[in-house]
């Protein structure tokens, strides 16, 4: 079985995150680039499954880490390899800078079709773009079932099962493979990569894929190879988030309730 885990290099959430007001894109030089934690957790869950599967003789599970990211973000893929992924696929192409969600989904879908996966696992949202729709978009493009926001995951030879929280309760969902799933931060804590794993990561295959390498798959999906001429979404303006101002402190002299009600009504919040 081959499981592709979609991982994402993101600006470190513990550092300053800066949006370039000129390009509207994240300024990647402004902070450390790290593997998004949710994708580390997804990877951890899948690696554990692969280890257990190998131990119990249930069959070999090949774990592939895949990302679409700028060329200089390979150290994050090396970390995925150090944690235990067998190989990595890095889709890197200057023509993909600033790709929107739909474009990203098309390219990832093409790469996933090229790789051929029994199961595709992603986080339920990234800490930088926080779109939260990528797994569903991929499922649509690849015509696969999608089981999203799983809090537990159980993988068998021909299906994936898990639970998801909804407003009304907890659902248990099952999808036949191949399928796309996304997982939440309820997944297990990611392991610390072992020193030996870090040194071994360099010997594992890390394939760099350019847009042109995906031409056949993109054509199969019925989408254009290069969209720079006809972007679907255009950043019109970007502004810095205004600095937080001090709030108004209401001291209760018997009228606090009325004043709070008035405050909310003024701002159409009540």
């Amino acid at each position: 079985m081959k499981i592709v885990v979609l991982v994402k290099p993101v600006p470190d959430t513990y550092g300053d995150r800066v949006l370039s007001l000129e390009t509207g894109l994240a300024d990647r030089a402004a902070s450390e680039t790290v593997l998004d934690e949710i994708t580390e957790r997804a990877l951890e869950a899948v690696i554990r499954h692969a280890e257990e599967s190998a131990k119990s003789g249930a069959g070999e599970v090949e774990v592939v880490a895949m990302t679409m990211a700028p060329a200089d973000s390979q150290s994050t893929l090396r970390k995925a390899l150090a944690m235990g992924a067998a190989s990595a696929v890095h889709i890197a192409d200057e023509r993909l800078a600033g790709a929107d969600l739909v474009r990203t989904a098309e390219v990832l879908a093409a790469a996933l079709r090229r790789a051929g996966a029994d199961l595709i696992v992603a986080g339920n949202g990234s800490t930088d773009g926080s779109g939260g729709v990528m797994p569903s978009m991929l499922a649509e493009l690849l015509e696969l079932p999608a089981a999203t926001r799983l809090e537990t995951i159980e993988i068998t030879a021909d299906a994936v099962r898990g639970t998801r929280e909804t407003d009304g309760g907890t659902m248990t969902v099952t999808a036949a493979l191949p399928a796309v799933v996304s997982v939440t931060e309820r997944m297990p804590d990611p392991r610390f990569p072992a020193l030996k794993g870090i040194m071994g990561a360099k010997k594992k295959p890390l394939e760099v894929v350019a847009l042109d390498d995906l031409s056949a798959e993109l054509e199969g999906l019925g989408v254009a190879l290069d969209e720079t001429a006809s972007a679907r979404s255009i950043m019109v303006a970007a502004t810095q988030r205004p600095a937080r101002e001090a709030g108004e402190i209401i001291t209760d002299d018997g009228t606090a309730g009325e004043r709070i009600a008035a405050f909310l009504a003024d701002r159409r919040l009540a």
Partner: protein
Amino acid sequence: MTMPSRTEMNRSEAGQAEAGASQPSQGLSETSAEERAALVEAVRDFADARLAPFANQRDADHEFPVETLCEAGQLGLGAICVREDVGGSGLSRLDAIAIYEELARGDIAVATYISIHNMVVGMIDAEGTDEQRRRWLPQLTDMSELASYCLTEPGAGSDAAAVATTAVRDGDDYVLTGTKQFISGAGTSAVYVVMARTGLTDDGGVDPAQRGSRGMTAFVVPASAPGLSFGAEEQKMGWHAQPTRAVVLDGVRVPASDRLGEEGEGFGIAMRGLNGGRLGIAAASIGGAQFALERTVAYVKERATFGQPLATRQHVQFELADMETELQAARALLERAAAKLDAKAPDAPVACAMAKRFATDAGFRVADQALQLHGGYGYLHEYGIERVVRDLRVHRILEGSNEMMRMIVGRAVLGER
């Protein structure tokens, strides 16, 4: 915090250090600057999550975090420079010092215990037979079992050749009797590498040809050996997160198959082990002091006196400049020594002694100055600075006192052996 800039510094230094190493040692893999950065980052993540948040409490509670050490073992931190066939990580000394520095930024007492464990495991790896390596090392490399180094005695510290513990041959066994003092991990460790005197005459005297360092032999002794017992836990100034006890050997039978090396080779084995041990202690001094410096940089920006942040005072800037310079100098000297030990250079022991003396003195001074710049808060346990000062004080004494380091360097300068 100044962590991102530290990462950059480490990266560039790692690259330079690599370029400066004359050759990688046999059997160890060469580490690229990128790999070194990934190693350091992984160890930092571990230290940030498992060591730093608990360092003050473990100090206060005198807690030896055996479970955390076990987890460190899973990462390969129990046998950093040990060959991979027995579970070692197969890294170089240059890698190891970068790793100990990061561990000590989290918790000095835990980092130095890990260094000591590595020293013992490294001795069995380097000096043991294949059979001994396969028997003792797999459970030590993953730190499911811990190890202690037993050289010092009540009457033999710097004068290590004065060891009085005896090992008397009796058939296929040796019978060990004596007391070892200041043993890190004693009582918890599963394995003790013990230096004892062999070559005794039948009437209990010492064969004149076996006096001093020549008559010492190393043994691997399991905690379960009958006759092995431990003194009370010593009440120390620092290093509270690791236990220190005396190890008492009362007629402990050790099969000859557990002798490390040949009879009379013990002193050389003990000293070779200490070369790496000194690098570890020195690196931990730098790491602990680096933590104190980072805390101080944050503090002087926040703390205002006479209407101005401390950081605007030229005196404070000069102090910070000296602290940074001392630590960078110590790091450079330490990397030089590690590269020499990796290259098995003949003057590696001198370089290790020089780096140990300089880095442990510099680390202590920087920590003490960090405390001074923190004012009264530096004296409070909560701020973690006084713990660093207490922990780093002993680095100038153990693994060979800094006076002994000067003797080693002084002899080399004078062209003596």
